Every structure is written in C-alpha cells, then in structure tokens.
C-alpha cells in the first residue's frame, strides 16, 4: 500500500518535468484532416513544385523562344555573353528611346523601384554610397549614377545595363527582377535625381 502511494507521488512530481522536456518538432508540419485524400492538399503541380513531365523537372517553364508575351515589347539586343554585351549596349543606346513620359506617376513609380532594387549599392542619392558598400560588405565601389559618366549615356544604354548588368560584371543583370515598365521609370527617376 505504502509502495503504491510512493509510486503515484513520484509520478506526480515527474510529470511537470516530462512536460518541459518535449518541444514541438520544428520540422513537422503537424496533422491535418484527411490530408492528401481530401481537398486539403490535392495532387496538382504547383508553381514551384517539381514536375516529372518536363525534362528539367520544373513546373515553371521559360516561354518558348521567339514568342512575345501579351503587353510586352521585344527587346532584340541580347546580352547573355560579354561579347554580345559589348556590341549591343551602345547599339541599344542609339536605337531605343524611353517609351514613357516623365510625369509625376512615372517618377513616383521609378522612385519606389529605385528604392527597392538600386538603393542597396548606389545609395539613396545615387552617388554610389549604398549601405552594402559603406558597411564594407560589398568590395567594389558602385558607380555614381548622378555624375556625368552615367548621365552622359542615352536612356537606352542605362536600360540595357539595368537589364543585363555592367560589362565589368560587378553589377548583375536585373532584367528578371524588374519589369520593363519599371526599368524605364527608373531611368526617368535617375535623370530627376541628377538635377
């Protein structure tokens, strides 16, 4: 009888310790009702899920070569290799002009996108004093966007560098991140910034 009570008491004392010892597993998504049999997680290929149908096993596919998406203008100055970039950058500067007019809306749009995509290296004022450089994280000094070197270039050339990156290779291509409309807005905003 006494032994029985002792066991019970010791269980009571140990219980809180037991509770404190087990965290929820951070890698576990937990349970759900019916799981994959139900509508909860149905079996279709989602944007980022792998896909056995395509050779590169990705659901998101690049557009077929030579096609132009609705609402997009083709930009026929490829810049995948250094040689292409050296030839096409000046060409784009001569042949392509900014399709947008610099009104208040466009400038606001340009500013908003400048402060997301450019500010880290080129800084708020465009002088090349962004946080990534001044804090010593990025080794190379970014180009000033308000000096004559950049401002002397035509709109098309600035657009080209934003799209495919600089010839030095220090600035990466931002064409996939920023839509053409927003890139042209940024070009307008750069002109405004230099004033």
């Amino acid at each position, binding site marked *: *009888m006494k032994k*029985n*009570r002792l066991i*019970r008491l010791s*269980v*009571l004392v140990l*219980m*809180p310790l*037991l*509770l*404190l010892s*087990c*965290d*929820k*597993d*951070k*890698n*576990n*998504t*937990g*349970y*759900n*009702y019916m799981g994959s049999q139900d*509508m*909860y*997680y*149905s079996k*279709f290929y989602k*944007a*980022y899920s*792998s896909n056995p149908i395509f050779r590169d096993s*990705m659901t998101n596919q690049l557009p077929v070569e030579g096609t132009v998406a609705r609402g997009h203008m083709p930009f026929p100055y490829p810049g995948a290799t250094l040689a292409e970039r050296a030839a096409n950058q000046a060409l784009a500067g001569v042949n392509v002009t900014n399709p947008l007019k610099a009104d*208040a809306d466009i400038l606001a749009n340009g500013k908003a996108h400048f*402060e*997301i*995509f450019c*500010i*880290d290296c080129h800084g708020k004022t465009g002088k090349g004093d962004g*946080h*990534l450089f001044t*804090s010593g*994280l*990025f*080794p*190379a000094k970014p180009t000033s966007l308000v000096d004559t070197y950049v401002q002397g270039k035509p709109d098309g050339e600035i657009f080209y560098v934003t799209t495919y990156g600089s010839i030095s*290779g*220090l*600035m*990466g*291509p*931002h064409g*996939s*991140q*920023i*839509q053409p409309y927003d890139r042209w807005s940024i070009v307008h905003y750069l002109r405004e910034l230099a004033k």
Partner: protein
Amino acid sequence: MIISASAVKNHLKCKRFLLLSGLFTFLLFTQLSFGQTAETEANFAVCKACHTIGGGKLVGPDLQGVTERRSEAWIIKFVQNSQALIEAGDQEAIQVFEENSKIPMPPNNLTDDQIKDILLYIESGGKVAASEVVVVETDETVASQETVQAETPSKSVSGRKDIRNMQITFFVLLVLMLISLFDLFVTKRLKAKWIHYIIILTALYIGGEVIFVEATSLGRQQYYQPDQPVWFSHKVHAGQNQIDCMYCHFTADKSMHAGIPPVAVCMNCHNQVKSGKNTGESEIAKVTEAYNNRKPIEWIKVHNLPDHVYFNHAQHVEVGKVDCEECHGVVEEMDEIAQVEDLSMGWCIDCHRTKEVQFVNNKFYEQYSKMHEKLISGEMKKVTVADMGGEDCQRCHY
C-alpha cells in the same frame, strides 16, 4: 500540475489577458477623456482621413511635431482655409502644397479654440491618442479588438516555446485516470477517495484542454520552421544588410506568389561576396555550385495554405498595402524562417473586418468611389475590407 495546466493554456491566456487589458483601457479612457476631449476627437476624425500622428505620411504629412515646425497662428489659418492662404502667396503654404503632390487640403469650419485643442491633442502623442479615438468611438467589443491590435507587437519565432508537444502528457494522464477509475470501482486499494477524484478531475481538465488545443491546430502549422537546403539567414540579409524584401521576392506586388528568388538573384551580390558572417564559405559555395550547374536550389515551402483556399499576394501587397511583417512576423530577426501566424480562417477574417481600405492613390478602388464619398462626408466612419465583400465565401473559396 499547476505548471502543466498553465503550459497548455498559455496562448489562450494571452488572448484573455489582452481582452482584459483592452477592457481596462476602455474603462480608463472613458473616465479620463469623457467630455473634455470627446469633441476634439470627433473633430480630429476628419483629419485622420489624410494625416497620422507619428504613423508616417498618408495623403498629407505626418502631424507629429507640427507645432514645432510651424507657428500656431499659421496652422490655424491653414486649417481653416488652405487654398486662400496659397492664393495669398504665403511661401510656407505653397511649399507644403507642392511637397504633397498638390493635393489641396479642404477648408475646415473650425474655430480658433477648436484648432488649438486639436493641436494640444496632437502634442499629447501619436499612438496612444489614436487608440483613444478608436476606444471612445466604437462599442466595447470592437474597442478591445483594436487595442489588441495596437498592443500586440509583431510576432517572432520565440512564440514556439509557449506551445508544447502534449502527446506524452495526454497518454500518461489517460493511463493515470483509468488506473484511478479502476481502483475506485474495482480494486478499492486506496481508502482515501479524494485522491481518485483529484486525479480524475485534473486529468479530465488538462486532457480536455489538450484535445481542444490540438483539434483547433489540426491542419495549421504555426511555428513550422523546416531545415532548408542552404543555411540562409533572413536576419543577415533583410536585417543587417537592409535589403528590401522585394529585392528578392520581386513578384510579391504582381503575382499570386511572392516568389522564390532564382539563384541568379543571389549571384548579383555573391559573384563578389564569397564568405558569410555565420557559416563562412560553405553555404555560399552551395549557391555558386547551383548557379554554375544550372540546378535550382530546392527550398522548402514554409507557409502552406490548404488547396481549397485562394490567396493572392498581389492583391494584398499592391492593392491592400499590407506590410510583409503583418503576416510574416519580424522576418529580419529570424535566422531561420518560420511561420509565426497560424494562418487560420479566423485570422484572415479578423483582419478583413478591421483593416481600413486605403482609397488614396489606389487605382483598384476607383470603382468603389461611392464608398469613398460616404467616408469623406462622414456617413461611414470607416470602410473595411469586409464592407466590400471581404467576408464573402467565394472571395477565397472557389
């Protein structure tokens, strides 16, 4: 026993506490501000459509510290009729007008004393004053909700510590309860029956709580924080390096998905930066390798909604102007990304009911101009997402 009970109920208690504190502030403010500032608050409600106190620029400038920037006499003139002041050629007024995209501030039919009261009200401070307005204007339940919103800091991962795995506890208690039931009716070894009762009642109570908590979290995955293939730290990138969320998640304002950045985006910086703060070269080497081999990194998705719910990032980021932080917590303090909200339907609807629609500079809401007119004329105090059908089932389930 007491410890275990509190462990289960921790997050329930947290809600109760906030509700109580909401009630308390409600009582406090009604006592303090009754009569004296009620009129000022009603007057300031008009200003609130375009101005904040310490909350940043809306249509007009932030009013915090306005009495230090401008003279009182000038403010009174400007508030009563700003256009007249501009036409009279007042340099300060013209400057303010042009700084704020030339949107004129409508004239206000207020006396000098009323404006002075409003200025005192602005001086008395930003957020506290703002929640006072809400508390007095609305009924009790809404008031407590609003205060909960204002007082709850943005969530971080540390919340996981409050929620424990109660499986073992549950089964131990179940066994204990069955033993004591068996002893009570069959073996009758223990003469002191109160021991049986205490064990059975506590087991029922805690067991019930566990069942309730576990059942509500069924299908939710709050604090899910999977190990990623690359030890990537948001704390370093978004926090210390101050990179904007949308530099990498660049489709958040244009697409249903916020977007997992392709490795090429990493290479914009990591073609030069080859050594990291926490892991040295080992993790960045994985990224470089993935880039060179043209093989995407298989990140593990953290925020999973069930497939019978439709959620669109563009609608919330671009149209709704919701900050990333409101749903994803303080990401810039997380080394490993975790889901901090439970993403339950109740959580969605709570926000749809309280979130006020931002009409200004928002092309999407031009079709709702009638509601905006009602808001300006004062016929509606505020327009929430729910007023525009944000509570309809087929908005998210179809």
